[in-house]
């Protein structure tokens, strides 16, 4: 065996462990789930039968599932871009700060490192109707009308979405700041000497060079919002995704089918639908953003 071959063998041996983990904990259960989505597996039942595509027909005819998909789309379409645009703006401003960068960075990252369940409950309390919620108390004290927030089928989803944007901001800001450090100062300095303005620098240097970071975050945040669960589970009354299913995400629908109705077959088929959607969205994102750039 040549030295190179031996090196490769060592590398594969070490990589084998995570591979084993991946196959055992990710891939295996996933294949099992795909198989189960064609059965009537119920947790309390001891027998199971193959039912073909009946589960898929059932969920696609279920208005609640379709609504949960629509809600999931709303979370992703409004949430992910909002997080990326806002955090990029904050990162650009922070990068210009001569002093106190660390303090601001900490302020923005705090929500992200707070346990999500705690964040969800604190916001849930703040969104309460009068006489309890602090936000409505503030509204009323300055003469504004009280809002229903989580009690309203039109305001509940944006309220939960806003909280999640607030949580994700810190993480994205940090990643953008790190990305900005990798832009070689020689390029920016050269541009400055050529008389480029701040806006031109941003448009022609910073943004293009941040492209890989933007792609990464677009993909990560897209996935994050597409599988949103904890916030909806904790912020909607009795964890039902209400009022009137207006905040129910696909992930919550799957959870309810699996662990409230014990209908694992139906839950598996819904999971597969969600998986295919996330995969498709991610591939499209990669395709759209990942054009080679040369300087």
């Amino acid at each position: 065996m040549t030295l190179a071959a031996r090196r490769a063998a060592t590398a594969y041996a070490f990589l084998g462990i995570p591979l084993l983990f991946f196959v055992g904990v990710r891939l295996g259960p996933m294949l099992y789930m795909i198989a189960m989505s064609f059965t009537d597996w119920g947790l309390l039942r001891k027998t199971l039968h193959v039912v073909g595509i009946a589960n898929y027909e059932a969920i696609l005819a279920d208005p609640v599932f379709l609504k949960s998909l629509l809600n999931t789309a709303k979370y992703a379409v409004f949430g992910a871009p909002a997080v990326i645009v806002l955090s990029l703006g904050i990162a650009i401003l922070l990068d210009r700060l001569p002093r106190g960068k660390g303090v601001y960075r900490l302020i923005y990252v705090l929500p992200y490192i707070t346990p999500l369940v705690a964040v969800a409950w604190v916001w849930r309390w703040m969104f309460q109707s009068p006489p309890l919620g602090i936000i409505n108390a503030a509204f009323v004290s300055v003469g504004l009308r009280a809002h229903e927030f989580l009690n309203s089928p039109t305001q509940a989803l944006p309220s939960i979405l806003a909280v999640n944007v607030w949580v994700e901001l810190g993480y994205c800001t940090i990643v953008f700041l790190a990305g900005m450090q990798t832009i070689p100062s020689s390029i920016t300095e050269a541009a400055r000497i050529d008389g480029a303005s701040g806006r031109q620098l941003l448009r022609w240097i910073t943004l293009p060079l941040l492209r890989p970071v933007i792609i990464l975050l677009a993909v990560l945040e897209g996935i994050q919002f597409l599988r949103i669960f904890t916030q909806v589970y904790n912020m909607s009354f009795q964890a039902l995704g209400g009022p009137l299913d207006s905040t129910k995400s696909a992930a919550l629908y799957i959870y309810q089918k699996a662990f409230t109705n014990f209908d694992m077959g139906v839950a598996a088929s819904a999971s597969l639908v969600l998986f295919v959607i996330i995969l498709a969205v991610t591939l499209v994102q990669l395709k759209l953003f990942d054009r080679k750039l040369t300087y």
Partner: protein
Amino acid sequence: MKRTRIGISLCMALFLGGAIAGQAADVTITYWQYFYQSKVDLMNDLIQQFEARNPGIKVEQVTFPYESYQQKVAAAVPAGEGPDVINLYYGWLPLWVKSGYIQALPDFNFSSRYLAKTFYPFVAQSVSFGGKNYSVPTAVRTLALIYNKKLFRDAGLDPNAPPRTLDELLTDARRLSKYDTQGNLVQAGLLMQPSGQGHVWIREVLFRQFGATPYSADGRTVTYNSQAGIQAFQWYTDRITKDKVGYPNFSTDDPTAFTAQKAAMNIDGSFRIATLNAVKNLEWGAAELPTYKGIKSNFASFWTNAIVNGVTGAKLDAAVKFLTFLTSPEVQEQWLQKVGELPATPSLSDKFKNDPVISVFLKGLAYAHATSYVDEAGQRAILDDAVDEVNLKKADPAAVLKAAAVKEQKLIDDFWK
């Protein structure tokens, strides 16, 4: 050398003897219930009493938080682990029986005649499937109107004269409601929480009082979608949309609002007695559910005990003994004293005729109905959503109730097909 050999033999004899004795004597059965402090404490006591009387049987209690109780059960089954005797809500029985998770109780100990003789009529009806009985309860629960005496006084109402009819209820509720300058409700006159006990108040009480029958006798046909049913449903939603005496999720939920003294009246169950008694400075009373056109109705429910499928032999014998003990009159009395739930055997209630709170709930039992659920959570959500449709989307109550009936019928049909 010789001595060592004797020593070893002795040790072995002792060890083996001990092991055999232990094996012959002990059957351990596992009992599951959800975590509720007073129930868990009492159950530990009861297990001691039971073990003292039944040497050779050990009972192990395992508890889980209420929220994840069903999930734990579901997760334990495929893993081949889990309880021998399990405590479950009667509304889950159809699904658990249909799934084959629990076994029919031996007819010798728990015959239909015995059940009919021992328990309230709605119990026997709810635990029997295909002529077999699947579970027995220790305690039952009903609803009552609970009210805050201090808030009654503050509003100039007599704290010892709670409303007796729906009309009086409405008048008092209006008087007890308070609003801020913008018109936001800050003190609810009557809590309107369908996801709490509101949905059963509509289902088994208001529907019947207005002249509708909620379900067919076998529970398989939804029949509340009648003119009378619509009137009953609208009576409920009008209190939210027109009178604004309360609305769903006011101050988080109804027990929270009532214990925080932000609400004057609520429709709640007897299981709340212990909780309310524990709240400092809360002066509360209970009254029978208000009547309408002279008709009384109430909703009864219960947690019940079943033996899991696959428990056989000595374990099954032990489990049957334990069930018999758990549903005995002496345990029922302890249950009422320590947990606050009402005895499942009617004859035991005489002792509490003079208790101002318990007697009110007991009276309700005489005319209570237990819904034959097939999917308690699903059926609750349908009425809950129906109220939300009217309240949040300004939908027409008649159309909403009609749609709810269709939805619920489909749920029932899907279950039995």
